[in-house]
C-alpha cells in the first residue's frame, strides 16, 4: 500500500474544510438544542417567612409567605390562624401570580386620551396625582358641597374600608356606596327576623343535615376555606356521624356535585320548596315546640294592639304551601317533599341554608326567609350546628371627630340613589341606584368618585349604565392593582399594593362566628411598584385639606392607626393571640369557666405577639345569648309572615312566565373566578369548571331537552339575547341544569384585568334588565328572560381552535 504526497494534500484540503465546517456547525447545533433549556434559575438566598392575610376574597385567611432572597416564592396557610388553620384555597395559592402579575399598574396614572384603553394613561408622580385630587376636594368643600364626593367601596375586611368611612364622615359626605353583594339578602333576612345586621354564620361542623336552598356553599361563600373546613368536619370529622347535604336548585354546581342529593327545582322556587317542607313540619307537628314558644313570635295567629286577628306562620303555610301546590310550582314530587321534611326533622341537628349565591349575586330575600323559617321550626337559631351571629370585634374606636359645619351640612343631605321605601326600610344605596341617579341628574351632582376595592363597571347588575354614569362625573379616581374595567374609564388610577406589600388589620370575615383580628405584614421589604394604600392616600389627602378634616387622622400613618385599633383588643380583656389547637381549647375552657388568662401583659406585648402569630381571636362563642342575637322589638325571632305573603305572589308570577318561550338566565360564580376576580390569573382561567372541563371562556349550560327544542347542539356557539343586549357563549348540553334554564358563569368578559382576562369570555351581567327584588329592593340577578339561538362560528381564537 502506497500513500503519496497528493493524498496528503487532498487530506489537508479536506481537513481544513472539515474544521471550518464542523466547529461552527457544532456550536450552532448545540445552541439551537440548548434553547430548549429554561432560562430561569430559581433564586438563592436566605429563607424567611412573613405572616399576612389573604385579600383575594373577603375570606380573611391567614397566610404565611415563604421568602427566599427577597422574593416571595410560596404562599401557605398560617397554621395558627383560626379561619384556615394552615389551609389555603386555590385563589390564595394563586395570589403570587397577582403579586408578580406583569400588567400591574406601576405608578399613579392620569388619563390623557380616550377612555377605555390603558394606552390613554400617562404615568405621573404621586405628588402630581394627590395634588390634583386634593385641589378638587378642596374646591368641593370651599363651595360648601362636600356631599358631591362619593366613595364606592367593596373588598376585604381590612382597614381601608374603615379609613374610607372615616374620611367621608370628616369630609362631610353621606355617599358611601357599598358594593358588597355577599350576604346582602341574607343580612336583610337576619334583620327582619332577628333584628341584627349580620351575615348568618352557619355552624356546619356541628350539624347533621343541611338543606341548601340554592346556596353556592362550596364555591362563593364569604370565607371559602372556613366553610370547607366546616364541610370536612360535617362529612367525616366525627366518628359514626356523616352529615347529609341536600342541594335544592335549578343548577348542579360544584356544591351540588358534592351534595348527597340534588333536588332540581324550577328556577326561583327554592324558597317555595323550603316553605313546602316547613308546611309539612307544621302540619305533622315536627317542629321544636319549646323553642317556638320561648324564642319566636308569629307562628300561631296573632292579635295586634287593636285586637285584630292577624294570620300566623302556620296559617300562611297551611293556606299557601300545601303539598300539591308546592309540588306544582317547583316540579318536585310530593313524595320527595315529604321525605325531605321527615329527614330534616329526624336529624339531631338540621340546618337550612339560604341562597348564598356568590360574592356578586345577592340571592333572593324570599328564599333566605324561607330558610330562616325552617331553622326556627327546628329550633336551630344560635345553637351548636345552627345559625350563629358573629361576635363583635372590640377594636378601639377612633376618637370623635371635631365639629365642622361644612361636614355637618353635607352629611344631612340624602344619599344619592337612596332606594329605601316604606316597604323596604332597610335598604340603603347601591351601585345600580347610584348609577341611575347620576345618569338621571339626581337631586345634586356628584363631582368626584373614588372607587375602592371594587370594579362596578364590570360587576354590577348594569355595567353599561355604570360606565355611562362614570362619564358624567368630572373626576373619577380608581384605586386598583391591575387596570380593571372601571380604571380604564376613570380619570386617575392610583395603584394599590398587593396584600403582601402592606400592613393591614382585618376583622372577622363575614360568616365566621367568633371575634377575630388578623394582622397583615408586608412580605416584601419594598413594594415592586410605586404604590400606596387607600388608607395612606386618604390620610394624605385629609392632611392636605387641613383642619378640621386633617384632625380625623393622627399623623402616625397607617401603622400607627393599626396599633391604635389593637389597643381596644387589649382593653377588652378576653381572647388570646392565635395559637395551636391546644391553646384554643385552653382559652375556650377557661373562658367558659369565667376566667381570662391573657398570654400578654401589655398592649405592646399583644402587638408583638400578634405579629408573630398572625393576630388575636376569641375562640369562645356564647350560645344562647339572646339579647345579642335577637334584637327585635318583641325580643324574639319574628316569623316574616307579611313579607312572605307579599313575596309569594311575585314568586308565582315568575314561575308561570318561565314555562313559555324564553329561557330563564341562571348566573353562578365558579370558585376560581368568584367575586369577579381570578380571571386575571392564568392558573385560575385554566380550571374554571373541572366537571365540564371548561376553561378560558364563557360557556352556557342547557338541558338536553331544552337544547333539542331550540335547536342547539353540544359545543356549539350560541347567542344569548335579553331585552338589553346579547352575548355569545359556548353551549354545553348537560343535565346539570333543569329544563328551561340557561346557566352562565359570572366573572369573565372583562375589558381590563391584564393580558389574561381582557377579552376572554363574556360578561353575562350585561344581560340583566335592571329588575329589582320586589321584596328587598336590591337588584335581582335571577330570572332574566333570554332567548337562545345558534350563533354559527365565533371570533375568539381559543374558541375557534377548540371548535376545530
Amino acid at each position, binding site marked *: 500500500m502506497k500513500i503519496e504526497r497528493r493524498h496528503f494534500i487532498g487530506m489537508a484540503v479536506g481537513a481544513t474544510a472539515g474544521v471550518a465546517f464542523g466547529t461552527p456547525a457544532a456550536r450552532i*447545533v*448545540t445552541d*439551537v*438544542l*440548548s*434553547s*430548549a433549556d429554561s432560562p430561569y434559575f430559581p433564586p438563592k438566598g436566605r429563607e424567611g417567612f412573613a405572616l399576612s392575610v389573604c385579600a383575594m376574597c373577603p375570606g380573611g385567611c391567614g397566610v404565611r409567605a415563604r421568602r427566599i432572597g427577597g422574593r416571595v416564592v410560596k404562599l401557605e396557610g398560617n397554621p395558627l390562624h383560626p379561619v384556615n388553620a394552615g389551609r389555603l384555597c386555590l385563589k390564595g395559592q394563586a395570589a403570587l401570580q397577582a403579586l408578580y402579575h406583569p400588567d400591574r399598574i406601576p405608578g399613579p396614572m392620569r388619563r390623557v386620551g380616550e377612555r377605555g384603553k390603558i394606552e390613554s394613561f400617562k404615568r405621573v408622580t404621586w405628588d402630581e396625582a394627590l395634588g390634583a385630587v386634593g385641589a378638587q376636594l378642596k374646591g368641593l368643600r370651599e363651595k360648601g358641597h362636600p356631599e358631591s364626593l362619593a366613595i364606592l367601596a367593596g373588598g376585604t375586611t381590612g382597614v381601608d374600608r374603615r379609613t374610607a368611612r372615616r374620611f367621608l364622615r370628616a369630609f362631610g359626605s353621606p355617599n358611601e356606596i357599598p358594593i358588597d353583594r355577599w350576604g346582602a339578602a341574607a343580612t336583610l333576612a337576619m334583620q327582619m327576623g332577628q333584628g341584627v345586621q349580620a351575615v348568618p354564620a352557619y355552624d356546619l361542623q356541628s350539624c347533621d343535615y343541611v338543606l341548601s336552598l340554592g346556596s353556592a356553599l362550596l364555591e362563593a361563600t364569604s370565607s371559602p376555606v372556613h366553610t370547607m373546613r366546616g364541610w370536612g368536619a360535617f362529612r367525616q370529622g366525627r366518628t359514626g356521624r356523616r352529615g347529609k347535604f341536600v342541594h335544592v336548585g335549578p343548577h348542579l354546581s360544584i356544591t351540588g356535585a358534592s351534595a348527597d342529593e340534588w333536588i332540581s327545582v324550577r328556577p326561583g322556587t327554592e324558597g317555595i320548596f323550603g316553605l313546602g317542607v316547613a308546611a309539612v313540619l307544621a302540619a305533622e307537628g315536627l317542629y321544636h315546640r319549646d323553642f317556638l314558644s320561648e324564642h319566636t313570635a308569629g307562628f300561631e295567629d296573632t292579635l295586634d294592639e287593636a285586637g285584630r286577628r292577624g294570620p300566623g306562620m302556620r296559617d300562611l303555610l297551611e293556606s299557601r304551601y300545601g303539598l300539591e301546590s308546592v309540588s306544582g310550582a317547583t316540579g318536585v314530587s310530593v313524595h320527595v317533599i315529604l321525605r325531605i321534611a321527615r329527614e330534616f326533622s329526624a336529624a339531631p341537628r338540621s340546618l337550612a341554608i339560604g341562597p348564598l349565591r356568590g360574592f356578586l349575586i345577592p340571592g333572593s330575600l324570599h328564599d333566605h326567609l324561607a330558610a330562616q323559617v325552617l331553622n326556627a321550626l327546628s329550633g336551630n337559631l344560635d345553637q351548636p350546628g345552627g345559625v350563629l351571629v358573629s361576635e363583635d370585634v372590640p377594636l378601639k374606636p377612633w376618637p370623635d371627630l371635631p365639629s365642622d359645619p361644612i361636614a355637618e351640612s353635607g352629611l344631612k343631605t340624602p344619599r344619592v340613589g337612596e332606594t329605601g321605601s316604606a316597604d323596604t326600610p332597610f335598604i340603603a344605596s347601591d351601585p345600580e341606584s347610584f348609577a341611575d341617579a347620576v345618569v338621571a341628574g339626581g337631586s345634586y351632582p356628584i363631582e368626584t368618585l373614588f372607587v375602592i376595592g371594587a370594579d362596578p363597571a364590570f360587576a354590577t347588575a348594569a355595567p353599561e349604565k355604570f360606565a355611562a354614569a362614570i362619564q358624567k362625573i368630572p373626576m373619577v379616581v380608581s384605586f386598583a392593582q391591575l387596570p380593571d374595567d372601571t380604571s380604564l374609564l376613570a380619570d386617575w388610577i392610583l395603584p394599590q399594593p398587593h396584600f403582601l406589600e402592606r400592613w393591614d388589620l382585618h376583622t372577622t370575615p363575614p360568616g365566621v362566628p367568633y371575634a377575630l383580628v388578623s394582622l397583615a405584614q408586608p412580605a416584601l421589604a419594598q413594594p415592586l411598584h410605586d404604590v400606596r394604600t387607600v388608607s395612606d392616600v386618604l390620610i394624605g389627602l385629609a392632611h392636605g385639606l387641613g383642619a378640621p378634616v386633617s384632625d380625623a387622622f393622627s399623623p402616625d400613618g397607617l401603622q400607627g392607626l393599626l396599633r391604635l385599633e389593637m389597643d381596644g383588643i387589649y382593653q377588652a380583656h378576653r381572647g388570646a393571640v392565635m395559637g395551636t389547637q391546644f391553646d384554643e381549647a385552653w382559652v375556650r375552657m377557661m373562658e367558659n369557666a369565667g376566667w381570662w388568662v391573657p398570654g400578654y401583659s401589655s398592649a405592646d406585648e399583644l402587638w408583638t405577639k400578634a405579629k408573630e402569630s398572625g393576630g388575636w381571636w376569641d375562640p369562645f362563642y356564647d350560645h344562647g345569648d339572646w339579647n345579642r342575637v335577637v334584637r327585635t322589638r318583641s325580643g324574639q325571632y319574628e316569623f316574616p309572615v307579611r313579607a312572605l305573603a307579599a313575596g309569594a305572589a311575585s314568586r308565582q308570577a315568575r314561575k308561570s312566565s318561565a314555562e313559555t318561550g324564553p329561557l330563564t338566565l341562571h348566573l353562578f360564580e365558579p370558585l376560581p373566578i368568584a367575586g369577579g376576580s381570578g380571571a386575571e390569573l392564568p392558573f385560575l382561567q385554566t380550571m374554571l369548571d373541572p366537571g365540564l*372541563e371548561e376553561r378560558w371562556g364563557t360557556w352556557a349550560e342547557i338541558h338536553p331537552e331544552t337544547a333539542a327544542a331550540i335547536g342547539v347542539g353540544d359545543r356549539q356557539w350560541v347567542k344569548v339575547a335579553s331585552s338589553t343586549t346579547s352575548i355569545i357563549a359556548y353551549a354545553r348540553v348537560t343535565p346539570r341544569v333543569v329544563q328551561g334554564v340557561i346557566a352562565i358563569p359570572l366573572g369573565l368578559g372583562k375589558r381590563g384585568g391584564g393580558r389574561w382576562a381582557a377579552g376572554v369570555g363574556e360578561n353575562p351581567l350585561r344581560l340583566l334588565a335592571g329588575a329589582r327584588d320586589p321584596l328587598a329592593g336590591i337588584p335581582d340577578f335571577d330570572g332574566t328572560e333570554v332567548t337562545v339561538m345558534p350563533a354559527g362560528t365565533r371570533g375568539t381564537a381559543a374558541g375557534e381552535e*377548540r371548535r*376545530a
Partner: protein
Amino acid sequence: MEKFDLGEDARLLGPIRKTGRGFWLFAGSMLAIGLWGLFAWSTQLRNGLSVTGLNVPVYWGLYITNFVFFIGISHAGTLISAILRLANAEWRRSITRAAEVITVLVLFFGMGCVILDLGRPDRVLNVLKHGNFTSPLLWDVCAVTAYLTASTIYLFLPLIPDIAILRDHMPERRWFYRILAIGWTGTARQQKILNRAIAGMAVIVIPIAVSVHTVVSWVFAMTVQPMWHSTIFGPYFVVGAIFSGIAAIIIAMAIIRKAYHLEEYLKQIHFSNLALLLLVFTLLWFYFTFAEFLTTYYGAEPTHMSVFLSKTEGKFAPLFWTMVVTCFVIPFTLLANSRTRNTVWGCVVASISIEIGMWLERLLIVVPSLSNPRLPLTATTYFPSWVEWSMFAAFVSIFMLLYGLFTKLFPVVSIWEIREGREHSVKEVTERVESYLPGGEDGHDA
C-alpha cells in the same frame, strides 16, 4: 479486467448514462419539498413539539404512525427478495434490487420519525449511555439497527458485480465505482464467495425482518392500554408490514418501468406474481383484523369497548371504514379477479389503495387508544399540524429523491443476475423440475 459486451442489457445502463430534463424537474421538486421539511423541522427544533397537533392524552400521533408505516414498508424489499431468492423463484431476478433499495432507504426514514418525535433529540445518545433493556423501545433500536445493517449488506453484495460493470463501462465517476467495486473482477472464486454470502445473508435477513416488526408491535402491546395489549399484535404487524411492503414494490416497479421504459425487464408476469402474493396478504390482513376486533367486541371490556366504538362508530369511524375499504374491499375485488390482476393498472390501483389503507391502519392503532384514556380527562381532538404534514411530505419526497438518485448511480435491475439467469437458469430449472418428477434419481438433490 476485460470489457465484455453487455449486449441488449446495455439499455439497463441507460438511466445512468443519460439524464433527461424530466429527472431534474422531479429531483428539483422533491428537493424543494425536502427543504420545506427542513424548515418545518427547524421550527419544531426551535419551538418544541408544541408546533405539532399532539396533546394530552394523544401523546403520539403522525410521527409514530409514520414510524410504524415506514418500518412496515421496509419489509418490502429485503424480506421478499430473500424469500424469493431462497425459494429459487427465477422471476425474482429483475425485481429484487428495486425492492431491496426501498428497504434500506425507508429504514432511515423510519428511524428519522422516531428522532423527530423525541422531545429532546439532542439526548438521543442517552439510549446507548443509559439503555434500559426492559423497554421495548430499546429492543426496537436494536432490531432496527440490525435490520438496517443486514439489509445494507444484503443490498450491497449483489450490487458488487454490477458496480464492476459500471466501472468498466462508464467513463464518468469511475473513481467512485472503483472504490465501491472493491476489486471485483468476476473470477469464479469471487463469484462463488459472493453467491455464498448472498445466500447466507438471505437466511439471516428473514428472522431479523420478522423480529423488527414484531418488536415494533411490542412497543404498543407491552403496555396495558386498551386495544394495544394484544397477543396477536406481533404477527398482525408483520403481516401488515409485508402487505404494505409488497404494495410499495409494485408501485415502485410501475414507476421505474414507465419512467425508464423497462417493459422488457419488468413484465406483466412480475406484476401478476406479486399481485397473487398481495392477494394472499389481503386475506391474511383481513383475517387478523377480524380476529383482533372480534375478540375485543366479544370480551366487551368497557375500556376496550370505548376504543372499539370510537373506531367503529365514533369519531374515528370514517377513517376506520375507509381503511376497511382500501385495505380489503378494493384490493380484494381487483386482485381476486384475474382480469384486473393481470393488468399493471389493476395491480397499481390495488397497491395504492393498500398503502393508504395501511397508513390509516397504523394511525388507527396509535391514536384512538390514546384518545380514550381509562380515567376521565379533558379530551381534545388530535389533528396533525402543518409541521407534521410537512415532515411527512418531506420524508416521502426525500425518499423518492434518494430512490431516484440510486437509479441514476446504479442499475435498478440487476444486470449480472439477469445475465446469469439467461445463461444458467433454463438448464437449472429444467434440472430442478425434473428432480421433482417421479422417476428421477433417488437421493440426489437438485
